[in-house]
């Protein structure tokens, strides 16, 4: 699913965001990506999405090599990924349903099916009563769930959630983490970056990877806070 061999990410300004990471993530894993602010979590997700390219080493995601030369195949790779980002990336002025449908439009499926799938995904995150609400009228927790619905409606092989609990209170954060964990199955891998290590006790922890200054300092089954 994901194979990283000695990957490094050095930004043009010289910042070494990731340094010599090697790991593999298999099908159906739930991975918590931990680490203090600035440790490189978002940078790693950007690499997995092909938004940045490794400056050294080798990275393959779902069999696709992440290199600058492969940008067109990487677009197609992204259609198999469900991204939930820190800023949600929802389209203002459009309602929840339209935002979720946007993720499906790219896949070339007929409009009727598109709408049915989008509604199903919104219902799954508990927003069946908010289909037609403009996203700017939704609470932060609801917006986060719309973003999750958009990601999962596409039945992705890989869900990448960057700080999905960022703006949420404890209850909502826990709810969102549980929701994301519930999408793990034999076909779908979920990777979540979070600062909220104190909440992880409440959810089934599978694997924890912890970064510090771009270096992997922990990679283990089970997520006991140290």
């Amino acid at each position: 699913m994901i194979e990283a061999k000695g990957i490094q990410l050095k930004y043009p300004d010289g910042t070494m965001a990731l340094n010599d990471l090697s790991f593999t993530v298999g099908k159906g894993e739930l991975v918590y990506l931990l680490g203090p602010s600035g440790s490189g979590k978002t940078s790693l997700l950007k690499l997995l999405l092909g938004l940045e390219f490794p400056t050294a080493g080798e990275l393959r995601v779902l069999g696709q090599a992440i290199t600058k030369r492969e940008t067109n195949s990487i677009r197609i790779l992204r259609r198999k990924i469900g991204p939930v980002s820190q800023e949600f990336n929802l389209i203002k002025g459009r309602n929840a349903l339209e935002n979720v449908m946007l993720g499906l439009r790219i896949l070339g499926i007929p409009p009727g099916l598109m709408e049915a799938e989008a509604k199903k995904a919104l219902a799954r995150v508990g927003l069946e009563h908010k289909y037609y609400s403009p996203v700017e009228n939704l609470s932060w927790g609801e917006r986060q769930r719309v973003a999750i619905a958009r990601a999962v409606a596409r039945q992705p092989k890989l869900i990448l959630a960057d700080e999905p609990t960022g703006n949420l209170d404890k209850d909502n954060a826990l709810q969102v983490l549980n929701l994301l964990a519930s999408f793990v199955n034999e076909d779908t891998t979920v990777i979540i970056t979070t600062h909220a290590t104190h909440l992880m006790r409440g959810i089934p922890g599978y694997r924890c990877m912890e970064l510090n200054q771009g270096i992997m300092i922990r990679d283990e089954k089970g997520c006991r806070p140290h």
Partner: protein
Amino acid sequence: MPATLKTLFYNLGYFAKEVKTSIRLSFVTSLVSAVSIGLILFILATVISGWWISRHFIDMISQEAEISIFWEEDLSDNQVTQLAEQIEQLEGIKKVRRVSAEEAYDKMAGMLGPEADILKLFELNPFTPYLEINLDLDKTEPVVDTLNRLPGIAYVRDNQEILNRLHSLSQLLGVMGYLGLAAVALTTLIIISHIIKLSIYARRSQIQTLELLGASKGFIAFPFLLEGCLIAFMGGLLATALIVPSVKLVHLHLWDLLPFLPLPPSEELTLKLAGLLWVLSVLLGLIGSIIGLSSTR
């Protein structure tokens, strides 16, 4: 790419909505752009109709244009027929016709109209028979040269002077038409590419989201192409709305002033102009948005 086409087709409603939103967000800019494009297209249409009308004149006149050949008096009837056949073989000749003295008389009477009574002052028909020759306008000079050297010909009368003048007038209008076209194309492309750049900027976060979700370049670009075409086409429609009544008006006036002018029928002219303006505006809109899109990447 059938998959890409399918994706575009399934999302036509979405694209239309995107264009609507984009135009609404920058309504004044879009409106001003469409109006400016409409006005410059209208000016272009005026020059082009002038050009088309002058070309029409030339066509008509060069069809009517004739070289008249008067033969030596001692030629027999047979020899004149032979001469006519010989001339018919020359390059650039369209038609050779023998005009009798009586016909020449009637022709002049027709031209003089109410003043034809003057002709009655002559006891005998003052006109001589001649050969009327129609020929290609640009072949006049060599043909006249050759004719002057043929035996049996007394005098060649041509209206090269007037035709040459018309020719250079039409050439001038043609050059103006092309220059106008170039200027209009350039201006339209600048306006459209600029407005598309603004639209892209206004919706850069949405584009980012689409990139993140794996949208193809075509999917991302399509609404912007539509927007550019639509705004330019609005300009084309405005120009048409202005030029059609103008042509009709000018037509009526010209007909009042110079009833004998061989003007082309105004329906044909306006139809051709509308077709040109619509195709041109959509094409320029498309190219303009492509320029706008590629210059922001």
